[in-house]
């Protein structure tokens, strides 16, 4: 991997069409990988080619040195302009008269029997000063390069096993007393599968849609297919609205359970509060009453005491931090590294039905509407007519409660 700059330089020495293509490729892929880390996939072949070029040039020099200094090896012509074929397709060097070339060097140019194919004594122009190092130095250098390659393989295997193999549904962490397994996602899905009715619908952000359908076997509102932006915006609006408005939206979608992912107790950073900005933006894109500046303080989404009142009243905040302060007395969110803003509050339209072991998944149920509504009584407050006035005032504004 660190041979890449050496490879770039090696590409410049005989700059041809092919080598300049590779240089341009690697420069643009480095830029794009810097912008979005997932594009590192594009950088991978370019880096491999570059380091391959560098390695083959290095082996070239060393094996040539060894061959020159070993007596009895055939064909020590000084004009051994052989370099060309590295492991890649780069060097073509078709210019100049190479008709005298008997056979093209094969790919195995790291071996010592490289019959000098290009006699080309005519190529005086390309006759570069060939590097010849002392015998012992080049032998040691070849050994070191081979060892380097071996260790690199071991390192890659370890990195792939540790860093790239996280299944992202079972999280593990190493502590002083061994391996801790955070199996909260499957715990929540198993609970939903066994302890809810078959027809109950679960609303969550779309990242968990396929998982809920597959493991919990319940209908979801939006899933990873994300083909209906308005539908996702409806869920996003509901998560960003205060409790009552959110209840109305979910009730109109016939939702029974709401699922939120919360990483504040254990420090899991891909939770719904970190994804909240997308809920606000997508919701605001379709429903204009959700305005992003309402949730921002100094251009940032905050949940501590400096948060905006809209943020502290929205459903996502309440469902994530409901009774969170009772765990440690202060309500310290490990992901945002701050104490939460509103610590003691009650839920009026939702009730908590399940929270997993490490608080990573929290499931709430929509409370059924009340039978009687205590509407705003009119000026003539009489006990006998209070119910009729409330009903009348209830029907005047849009009453969602039946």
């Amino acid at each position, binding site marked *: 991997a660190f041979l890449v700059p050496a490879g770039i330089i090696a590409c410049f020495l005989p700059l041809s069409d092919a080598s300049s293509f590779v240089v341009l490729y690697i420069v643009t892929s480095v830029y794009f990988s810097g912008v979005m880390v997932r594009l590192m996939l594009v950088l991978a072949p370019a880096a491999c080619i570059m380091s391959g070029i560098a390695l083959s040039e290095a082996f070239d020099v060393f094996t040539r040195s060894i061959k020159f200094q070993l007596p009895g090896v055939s064909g020590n012509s000084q004009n051994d302009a052989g370099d060309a074929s590295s492991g890649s397709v780069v060097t073509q060097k078709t210019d100049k008269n190479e008709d005298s070339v008997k056979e093209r060097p094969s790919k195995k140019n790291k071996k010592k029997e490289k019959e000098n194919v290009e006699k080309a004594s005519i190529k005086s122009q390309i006759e570069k000063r060939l590097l010849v190092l002392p015998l012992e130095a080049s032998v040691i250098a070849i050994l070191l390069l081979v060892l380097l390659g071996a260790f690199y393989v071991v390192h890659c295997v370890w990195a792939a096993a540790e860093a790239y193999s996280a299944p992202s549904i*079972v999280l593990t962490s190493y502590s002083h007393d061994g391996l801790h*397994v955070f*199996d909260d996602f*499957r*715990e929540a*899905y*198993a*609970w939903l*599968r*066994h*302890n809810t009715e078959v027809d109950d619908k679960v609303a969550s952000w779309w990242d968990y849609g396929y998982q809920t359908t597959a*493991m919990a076997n319940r209908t979801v509102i939006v899933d990873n297919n994300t083909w209906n932006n308005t539908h996702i915006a409806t869920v996003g609006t509901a998560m960003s609205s205060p409790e009552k408005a959110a209840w109305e939206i979910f009730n109109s979608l016939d939702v029974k359970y709401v699922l939120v992912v919360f990483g504040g107790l254990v420090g899991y950073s891909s939770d719904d509060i970190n994804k909240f900005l997308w809920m606000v933006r997508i919701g605001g894109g379709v429903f204009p009453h959700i305005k992003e500046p309402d949730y921002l303080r100094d251009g940032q989404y905050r949940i501590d005491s400096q948060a905006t009142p809209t943020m502290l009243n929205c459903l996502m905040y309440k469902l994530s931090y409901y*009774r*969170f302060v*009772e*765990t440690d007395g202060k309500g310290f969110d490990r992901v945002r590294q701050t104490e939460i803003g509103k610590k003691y509050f009650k839920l009026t339209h939702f*009730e*908590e*039905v*399940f*929270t*997993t*072991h490490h*608080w990573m998944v929290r499931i709430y149920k929509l409370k059924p509407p009340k039978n009687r509504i205590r509407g705003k009584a009119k000026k003539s407050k009489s006990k006998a007519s209070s119910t009729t006035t409330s009903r009348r005032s209830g029907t005047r504004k849009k009453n969602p409660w039946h």
Partner: protein
Amino acid sequence: MEGLLRLRLALVFSVVAHLSLLVRSSSLSSPELQIVNAERRIDLTSHIVRVYLTLKVENAGTSPASEILLAFPPTQVDRIALVKAAATVGKKKKKKSHLPLDVNPIALPVAPNGTKHFAISLSNPLGVGESETLEVFYVLTHSLEPFPVEISQSESQLVHYHDSAIILSPYLIKQQITVIKTPSTKVESFTKVELTDRAGTEIKYGPYDERPPYSFSPVIVHFENNNPFAVVEELVREVEISHWGSLQITEHYKLVNAGARHKGIFSRVEYQSRQSLSGVSSFKHLLARLPPRVHSAYYRDDIGNISSSHLRTDSRKSEMEIEPRYPLFGGWKATFVIGYGLPLQDFLFESPDGRRYLNFSFGCPLAETVVDKLTIKVVLPEGSQNPSAVVPFPVEQHLETSYSYLDVIGRTVVVLEKENVVPEHNSPFQVYYNFNPIFMLAEPLMLASAFFLFFVAYVAYLHIDLSIRK
């Protein structure tokens, strides 16, 4: 005329006398048993009700008795899981030994109020005037009804138990006493009939004298029982015998907490912080007792592997402590699969008449659980004939065929089904079958011949010249 009439009268009178004699002789030849002393201890500490009955029976009739009847009210009979009886032999208190006796349900033509009976067959008939002491033990399941039916997370679980203060029996009982043991001292209420007393965790009804047969005095005890009401609704155990050296067992469980249903919210913070007050009737762990030398144990469900389990092995037993993904509150369900392998030499033996038999334990390995429907499938190796099962209690049996790897004719499966299984049913049972040892070679020969034929075909193909012209 008069002579004829007197003759007829005499005939009628003699016939009537004979008939009355006959009737009286039949009543004279029936045994009249009396229970001199009865002591009943009802153990309500777990969710499985265990009753220990000590009866001293005396034969006050005129002919020896070979059977003693036990009576149960119809509501209890459906829930009886097992009834065991033993006769105590030996005069001294320290030297009592127990002979197990057969108990079978019996239907009597005359049964007041639908009482059902069980008959204990005595090994020696009880002679006239003799008395014998019997110990009876029976187990009732699903007899504790949660009341209130739904509780919230912070409440404790209270249940009702219905029974009678007077032991129901077809015989006259001269003296009896009933003691009920509750798990804790929290008893909400209990029916007070005459001579009722309560001391600590024991409620005593009695002693009562001279109660006529079939007398019944219903009482209800309302008490707190927070033991885990772990009920397995359905359990399917598959035991696969492989003559290559191992026994593979797979068990599919559908577990439910059959206590008072959980209503309302579940607050994780309360559950974790106040563990002695919150969720007292829920359970998190279950213990499975497995035979020693178990290997390759796994614990998973539909979604995947469940990582919260511990297996501790020993030279005499293995214990697997499993923790379902979430704690089970009242009414919550969980399903999972437990599988493990056992060495074959511990369980497969050869009987003296040349048949092989598998000696394995019936029942559910989970401790203190009731299984509503248990199915055990013993998969015999291919080529077994004449399978038969010997089980110490009544089960339903039938045969099936299952196909597995490298099977041509299928493997015979002996299926045993039983309902209402309690931990006292964990006794060994045997499955006998004939197996010709030559069948062991069937599978390797099949594989070897398949590869052989393939290579032969390839060699032939290489050397056969199929061209039409030269």
